[in-house]
């Protein structure tokens, strides 16, 4: 009888340990996902700031674009932490569309390509783009691991009880999946 009780206790302890390890793993993954998401936000903002600085250099050559730049600055001021990610993404897209226009104008000024400030900012932007890509990949990788874990047996038996629900992967916007028409872009249409 004593040995039966002992076996029972051992089984309970093993199950409890398994649950604790599984729970901690889910918490760890969830935190990594949140961290990756926060990093995306940071890099989006960094990218925008770098693009704006570069646009300022362009505007110093093409004064007529100053009004566009001021519009972008006003949009930037409208971004706040209280907005949802979707709202922020929409504002960023709008700002970047305006900035792209300014950079296209910069193509008409060959002297700009020799401007050290402009070149350094270009390298900074490339760097940030790569880090943004890395943070998105980190996010998606952790979401995949997390979703796989909460759907797997036996984690799926208790994940829902503790509030662990599937997260969505970051997806590419539809307009960015389309092929780029280089001819139209270069003609400025």
């Amino acid at each position, binding site marked *: 009888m004593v040995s039966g009780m002992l076996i029972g206790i051992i089984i309970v302890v093993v199950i409890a340990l398994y649950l604790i390890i599984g729970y901690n793993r889910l918490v760890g993954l969830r935190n*990594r996902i949140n961290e990756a998401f926060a990093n995306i936000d940071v890099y989006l903002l960094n990218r925008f700031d770098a693009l704006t600085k570069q646009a300022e250099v362009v505007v110093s050559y093409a004064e007529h674009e100053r009004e566009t730049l001021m519009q972008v600055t006003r949009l930037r001021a409208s971004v706040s932490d209280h907005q949802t990610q979707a709202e922020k993404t929409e504002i960023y897209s709008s700002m970047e569309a305006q900035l792209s226009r300014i950079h296209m104008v910069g193509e008409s000024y060959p002297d700009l390509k020799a401007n050290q400030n402009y070149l350094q900012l270009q*390298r900074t932007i*490339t*760097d940030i783009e*790569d880090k943004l*890509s*890395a943070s998105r*990949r980190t996010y998606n990788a952790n979401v995949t691991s997390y979703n796989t874990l909460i759907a797997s047996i036996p984690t799926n038996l208790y994940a829902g009880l503790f509030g662990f629900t599937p997260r969505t992967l970051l997806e590419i916007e539809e307009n960015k999946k389309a092929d780029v028409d280089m001819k139209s872009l270069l003609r400025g249409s």
Partner: protein
Amino acid sequence: MLPTYQEVKSTALAYLDELETLRQTIKEARKKYYYIIAMLALTIVLLIAINSPTGTIPILVLIAILFIVIFVFSMKRSKQNEAYRAAFKNNVVYPFSQKIVELYELPHETERHQNYCRYKPDYRISDRWIYGSYLFDFPIDRIDGEDYFSGRLGLTDFEFSELELVEIRRTRDMKGNTTTHHHVHFNGVLFVADFKKHFEGITVVQARALDPTKGVGKLFAPLGKLFSSTTTRKASQRIMMESEAFNNAFHVWTSNELQARYILSSNFMEHMLSFKEKYAGKVNMSFVDSNMCIALTTTKNYFDVSIHRKVTPAILEEVYDDLSLFFGLIEQFDLNTRIWSKD
């Protein structure tokens, strides 16, 4: 682009005749010693055979002379081998490396691009990189190395050398007798280059022992994933990349997942896979302090030549191929493309 063998071979071909003359001179000098040793040995044998009437003292004296001659000959032989090897390294390998680096060209070079290379045949890469690369996670009791190259190609600083890392194990049996065993953990080349991006943390990319998509590897694939070990506590997080082919070829350990993915872009992973296909031995890499470290395992003794072997144009081509392998790592991994914010 590295120059072709045709463009650089004249540098070393010019010295081939001189090297062969040196080799023949050494061989002739040795013949005299072989003759003296043979004569002494023959005399001793004859005296013993005829039961020399003069007694054993002359025989003992002759044996002593024979040992002295053999000892002196061994010392001289060793020095001659060293002299020949040094002549080969200083007059063939060194000028070859200089010529390759001098003719190295990149499109759109600026004043920041530089090409130079230093060669120290008897030196090895510093301990800083042996321990600081986090590629050798085992006890190291003895480090041997040679053929140290350092310099710059384009915008990338580099250094590399041959390396042998040995652990000395001592075991004691029940009777108290100690046995010493020298275990060679690593034999190959450690190559370190300034990476094209600035990054933080440590990322280690270890080659998998068995490819889980081929042969025996298929059987042990699940175990491989369970039992892969980190090479350092500082890079303790194991991550899976998006490329299945890459995950089948390498394990990735890192101290910072975002930085690891920043380094290992899709393009870069393709470069790594392509290099692994080309190189016959095991390849491990790490990314530390904005530098890239590559450990190439091999049994080959690079940039060396035996006195018993004539240096032919085929051997020169082999030296060129070896130098191109290492200098070519900078091109293989596109380290001279500097479009990020690291200068």
